[in-house]
């Protein structure tokens, strides 16, 4: 195996994609999880099902629809292309959008579970102590849901790292733009470059294992807050 000849670009791109995706997912996922945990609508099961869809849907199906939506004639792709001059499919931005859908349940569900376990009681207590709803969210609900946040961030990150089918459909394999680690591995195998495939696979395996190990270790140390 030759480490010096290793192309680091897919690795950095993958890490970058995972990091940006997790950030986007926190901005989107926290409100969704909060809303799901507190809504009284009777359609809640329907929303829960929609959020869970990417868990079971074949990534190619998800990728196919995203390709259509993000493509030059799609609902999102067309207006974006009209504004920016370039389409979303086969770009890094397109990949971030695709990964956001793909990893959504991995971020929303731990948060949703955490918010639901906390319930309304501590929030009501905070309101009676003069905290606004926004204040109570940051100073009571979020610290109490810390384990949920950590689990969400790590699962979202790790899951995006290993993404393949959706990326292939939406992003293709443009070096430096959309060629992520899993696709690089796939191509190495296709060209019978097993030594590089080994190196990358083993690297991804150990990295992911280490990340998960850290999370489970931290989670054991953190207290569980359930009202």
């Amino acid at each position: 195996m030759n480490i010096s000849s290793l192309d680091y670009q897919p690795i950095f791109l993958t890490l970058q994609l995972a990091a940006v995706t997790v950030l986007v997912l926190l901005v989107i996922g926290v409100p969704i999880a909060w809303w799901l945990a507190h809504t009284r609508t009777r359609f809640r099961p329907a929303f829960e099902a929609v959020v869970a869809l990417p868990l079971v849907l074949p990534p190619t199906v998800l990728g196919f629809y995203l390709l259509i939506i993000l493509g030059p004639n799609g609902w999102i792709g067309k207006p974006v292309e009209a504004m920016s001059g370039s389409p979303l499919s086969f770009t890094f931005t397109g990949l971030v959008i695709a990964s956001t859908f793909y990893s959504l349940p991995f971020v929303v569900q731990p948060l949703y579970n955490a918010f639901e376990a906390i319930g309304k009681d501590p929030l009501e207590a905070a309101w009676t102590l003069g905290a606004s709803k926004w204040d109570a969210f940051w100073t009571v609900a979020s610290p109490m849901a810390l384990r949920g946040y950590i689990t969400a961030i790590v699962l979202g990150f790790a899951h995006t790292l290993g993404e393949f089918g959706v990326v292939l459909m939406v992003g293709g394999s443009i070096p430096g733009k959309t060629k992520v680690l899993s696709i690089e591995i796939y191509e190495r195998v296709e060209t019978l470059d097993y030594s590089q495939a080994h190196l990358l696979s083993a690297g991804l395996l150990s990295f992911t294992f280490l990340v998960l190990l850290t999370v489970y270790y931290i989670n054991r140390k953190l207290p569980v807050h359930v009202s």
Partner: protein
Amino acid sequence: MNLLSAKFKLVFDEFIFKVDLEIPIHGFTVLFGPSGSGKTSFLRCISGLERSPEGFLRIGDETWQDEKRGIFVPTSERQIGYVFQETRLFPHLNVEGNLRYGLKRCTPQNGDALFSQVVEIMGLGSLLSRHPVNLSGGEKQRVALARALLTRPRLLLMDEPLAALDAKRKQEILPYFQRIQSELSIPVFYVSHSLNEVLQLVDTLLLMDQGKIVAAGPVEDVFSHPNLERHLGHSLVGTVLGTTVVRQDEEFQLTVLKFNDHILYVPRRDVCPGNRLRVHIRAEDVTLAVAPIEDQTSVLNVLPAQIVEVRSNAEDGCKVDVILDIGCPLLASITRKSLAHLNLQSGQNIYAHIKAIRMAHELD
């Protein structure tokens, strides 16, 4: 004096909570009634945690809710303290963090002076760095109470704060409630389904049943209100007397109480002479005799009384309620047969034999 005007209506599946009330708020007001009578709903409406669609709420000169004018002040902007039955301390903060949470949001100025005062009153000095998981039930409740007091509430709402504690812990907490009154003079609305824990504290009693307030006023008056049996429950029908402790009788292990000009003996209690003590006398524990037979009975407390009125008992056909005058009304429940046998009439002078006198905390 501060007036509370409240008009609330909430419709639940099988239960309607409806209150239209105007009362002065001072001292200790107890909302008493069976579970599911709407006591907690009332507190939640006052605090704004529950919003009654056509509600109205005014405390003193502040209107907190007036749906006709589109006014609804959110909970966080109402000057109330709320002590929940399950304390709801924040598990991620230690005791000091819990106490300061409300303090810094509601009392930005001179917060430290109030903090020290409340910590001292509630006896929390040694607990400040502990986390709620490491507190006993009684300690948690004291922290919750202190946390609410530190918001400088105009009105303190307490929802069965003692329900989860055993009898011994209850006795430990009760003196702290007294200190809220004597040292901070914050009016309290206190929800309870057991009168024993609050009989010594209560100034005003709101009796609730099936979502409505059925009686309101000083506790002695509410108890002498006619036809309360079905609301109070059989075992509580009777009379509440405010007495003064005269002395301890060491020889016979009795405590001597004075009520008007009458002397009452009760089993020895740890109370100092001069203290006020409210006692409860069940209507069933009062028997009537036409002659003074003090030297022929084992009953210790025999009081001369005059019959004011005899009423048939709506709940029990064999019983009648006899309202006596012993300087204040005293309720006795005797059988219709005894009434006929003794030929009792209104205005007649007789003797009331009191078989048992219960202290507040001995009620069940």
